[in-house]
């Protein structure tokens, strides 16, 4: 150790002994820690798969309803049904128009999804279930076009691509509004809630045991062995 360094150490020690013990405080001023590496355009391209409602992010490629039918029957129909009606308990992709305000709403691509991108982006990242990100861009465009066609959103001759993107009008685009709970549920804020005789004596109006859908213990896995 150099003499200067030794002197520095001595001074530090002296301070450490003399100064009151004070914990290091969290410093929130933005700082570059020099951690992490620059992501290259090539790296980003492989993962950058999201698509927005305006079509930003959609890959090059095109696909017709006709070609989409083949892809769909091959890779989707086993779960979602030949006409998008669902094969068993898998999600239904078509029909359901006019049911949203009913007692039994059927939410599908045609009845509920607000944007083409909401379907396209999802199929691109998650479907077919169990074989994600396996479709080519053309297959992706084609099968999406076919799902739209199953919902009567585009005709049999339609070809989906970046160029035709904005022509697709989803029926339920206007069906959503932003969270308004703080306005419409204002009554739930109450600094002095009722404590005594808040309602008439209550009666039981429904029993879970009567519905009887609670799983049996026999359907459960056991704990660690």
């Amino acid at each position, binding site marked *: 150790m150099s003499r200067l360094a030794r002197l520095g150490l001595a001074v530090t020690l002296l301070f450490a002994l003399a100064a009151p013990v004070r914990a290091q405080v969290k410093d929130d001023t933005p700082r570059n*820690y020099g*951690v*992490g*590496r620059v992501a290259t355009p090539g790296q980003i391209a492989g*993962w950058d798969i999201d698509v927005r409602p305006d079509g930003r992010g959609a890959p090059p490629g095109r696909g017709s309803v006709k070609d989409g039918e083949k892809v769909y029957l091959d890779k989707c129909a086993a779960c979602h049904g030949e006409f998008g009606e669902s094969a068993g*308990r898998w999600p239904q992709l078509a029909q359901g128009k006019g049911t949203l305000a009913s007692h039994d709403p059927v939410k599908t691509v045609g009845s509920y999804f607000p944007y083409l*991108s909401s379907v396209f982006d999802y199929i691109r990242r998650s479907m077919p279930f169990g074989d994600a990100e396996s479709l080519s861009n053309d297959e992706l465009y084609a099968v999406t076009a076919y799902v739209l066609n199953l919902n009567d959103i585009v005709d049999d001759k339609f070809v989906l691509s970046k160029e035709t993107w904005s022509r697709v009008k989803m029926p339920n685009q206007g069906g*959503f509004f932003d969270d308004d709970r703080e306005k419409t549920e204002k009554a739930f804020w109450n600094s002095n809630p009722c404590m005594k005789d808040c309602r008439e004596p209550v009666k039981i109006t429904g029993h879970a045991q009567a519905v009887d859908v609670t*799983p049996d213990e026999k359907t459960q896995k056991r704990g660690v062995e």
Partner: protein
Amino acid sequence: MTQPTDKKRTTRRRFLAGAAGLAAAGASSARADNAKNLPPNVADWTRQLGEGVGVRAYGNPSKYEKHVIRRTVPWLTATPESSVSFTPLHQLDGIITPNGLCFERHHGGIAEIDPNDYRLMLHGLVEKPLIFALDELKRLPRVNKIHFLECAANSGMEWRGAQLNGCQYTHGMVHCVQYTGVTLKVLLEQAGLKPNAKWIMAEGGDAAAMNRSIPLGKALDDCIVAYRMNGEMLRPEQGYPVRLVVPGWEGNVWVKWLRRLKVGDQPWFTREETSKYTDLLENGKARQFTFLMDAKSVITSPSPQAPVKQKGFNVISGLAWSGRGKIKRVDISLDGGRNWRAARIDGPVFDKACVRFYYELDWNGEELLLQSRAMDDTGYVQPGKDALRKIRGVNSIYHNNGIQTWALKADGEVENVEVG
């Protein structure tokens, strides 16, 4: 997930069939005691040596606790890879959920990510797009925060009436643990935000590649890119090695197996924030971006899976939480919401975390209608189910934070009921 009425009911037998009846005061519990372990006799475990250290290199709960497990509702979903298992709330106490019992919700199964090959990409409207390895994330400044995580669909099967007879099933899509990680704010500062940055998209690296939009304000406020829960690395089913923590907001935005953060100037309207996780009202219109979880509480014991075993002195125990802030008070009713009294909160009270409450009573076998009602520090009071249905209808699936009623019967059994 769908309403059970739409589904084949594959299991019909009652969960509690055969549960032991009420024991007389002072008598021991249902399982027969073994007299050779009881005084004046001396049990084997007192005479003989047990297993040495290291035999249980990673310890498990006692073999007598094998019934304390996450449970599933098989009819609920088409496949276990996109499904849910529920936290056994009725078997737990305090505010921290053990890691192995935190409920699971996956959309493409549990990704098994090699931490060595883990990468987080941060790009979009930033000055410098970045990639972080796990070790690099761990070098950044750390925070520790205890938060609840509730799935927006928790209690979703109860909109149309009492359905599932057990608080594990009615309320078990919630857990509360301590997270360790780096704040999202610090990460974003490393890349530098462009002036038009307004939203962040978080994306998972699992087979669902789950993606959700989060407003920048929230991202800079209290979000954490977390790699530890309760001190140890995240469990695979909770997003190992890295998940997003979005305090107080619905579980779906807490993206697991986090692989990408993209900064944009508008939300993405992904499938998960349109087709799912929007709240359909009676008029056919749906609320979107209902991120925040309103104040909620539930009595965890007694409850249908945790009946009262003896008359006399008993402790009612439950959990309360709010996405808007701290729980301020929890009230208890024994008569279905007619009269209320304040419960006792015991243990720490953190922002956007579970609190534990107790109410002690001498019970002589009279029938009770037990309810709990949470209040938070914004003055929000957990509403009754009817009040909630008046505004949200019964088709919402998500965001059911209505007051739960348990009917305690003379024999100590408890049932999930609706009252009016």
